[in-house]
C-alpha cells in the first residue's frame, strides 16, 4: 500500500494536484484542469491514480463529481516516517555492530 502511495506521489503533476486540493478543498476535474497545462483526460488519469492510492476521494454532488483529499489515506502515510526511522536506525545499528566486530578481532 505504501509503494502505491509513493508511486502516486512520485509525479510532479500529481503532487501539484494534491497541493491544490489541499489549498482549495473539493474540486471538479474541469476546475482542476484549468489550473494545469495538461489536458482534462490527463488530469482524470492522474486523479484515478491518486484515488487508487487512496490519497484522493471523490463524491457526486448533483451532476458533478468532486475530488478532495482522503484524510484516511493520508493518515496512514504517517507510517512512512515510521518506516524511514526504522530503516535509519537499522542502518545505524548495523554500522555499530560492524564496528563492534572489528574491535573484537583486533589483538
Amino acid at each position: 500500500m505504501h509503494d502505491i502511495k509513493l508511486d502516486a506521489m512520485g509525479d510532479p503533476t500529481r503532487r501539484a494536484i494534491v497541493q491544490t486540493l489541499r489549498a482549495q478543498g473539493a474540486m471538479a476535474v474541469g476546475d482542476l484542469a484549468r489550473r494545469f497545462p495538461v489536458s482534462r483526460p490527463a488530469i482524470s488519469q492522474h486523479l484515478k491514480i491518486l484515488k487508487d492510492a487512496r490519497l484522493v476521494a471523490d463524491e457526486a454532488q448533483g451532476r458533478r463529481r468532486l475530488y478532495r483529499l482522503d484524510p484516511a489515506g493520508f493518515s496512514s502515510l504517517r507510517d512512512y516516517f515510521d518506516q524511514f526511522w526504522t530503516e535509519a536506525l537499522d542502518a545505524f545499528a548495523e554500522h555499530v555492530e560492524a564496528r563492534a566486530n572489528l574491535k573484537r578481532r583486533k589483538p
Partner: protein
Amino acid sequence: MTTMAPDTSASIAPVRKSITVRATQADAFRIFTTDMDSWWPRSHHIGKSPMKRVIIEEKAGGRCYTEQEDNTECDWGSVLAWEPPRRFIFAWQITPQWQFEPDLAKSSEVEVTFTGLGDGRTRVDLEHRHFERHGAGGPAMRTGVDSPNGWGDLLGMFAAVAEKA
C-alpha cells in the same frame, strides 16, 4: 519534554522507535551524532545533486546539513539540545515544498536519548514529533521541486492531515 512553546493546533501522533546497539553510551551517542555520515541512508537528503556527506555541528544551535556533489551545502536542521552522552534533539527543518525551513516554529523535532544498559550495550530511543508544525505556514502551491526518492511531499501531507483534524 518539549523544547518550544506548546503548539495549540491539532497535533499528529509522534513516531517513536527504539533499538539496542552493542556500544557504550558514549560511543553510541558519538556515532549517531558526530559520525552520522557513517550510517545515514544516502538517499535521504534535500540537495539538488547527490549528497557527499552529512554534518552535525556539535553544539546547541549548531547546523545539521549535507555537502552535495556540486559543492553546495544544504541545511536541513538545527541542533536544539546537545547533551552527550545522554540526549540529542534536532529540528527537522524541511518545508512542505521540500526546502529548508528557517523558522523553528514551523519545524518538527527529533529527540534521541541514549541509555547505557551496563553490559556494553546501549538503548537508543527516538521520537519524531510535532509534525503538525509543518502546516503552520498554510497551504502552498508546490513549484515542482523533485525529491530524490518520491517521499518529497510527505510533510505536506502531514500538514494536510493536521489542518483537517
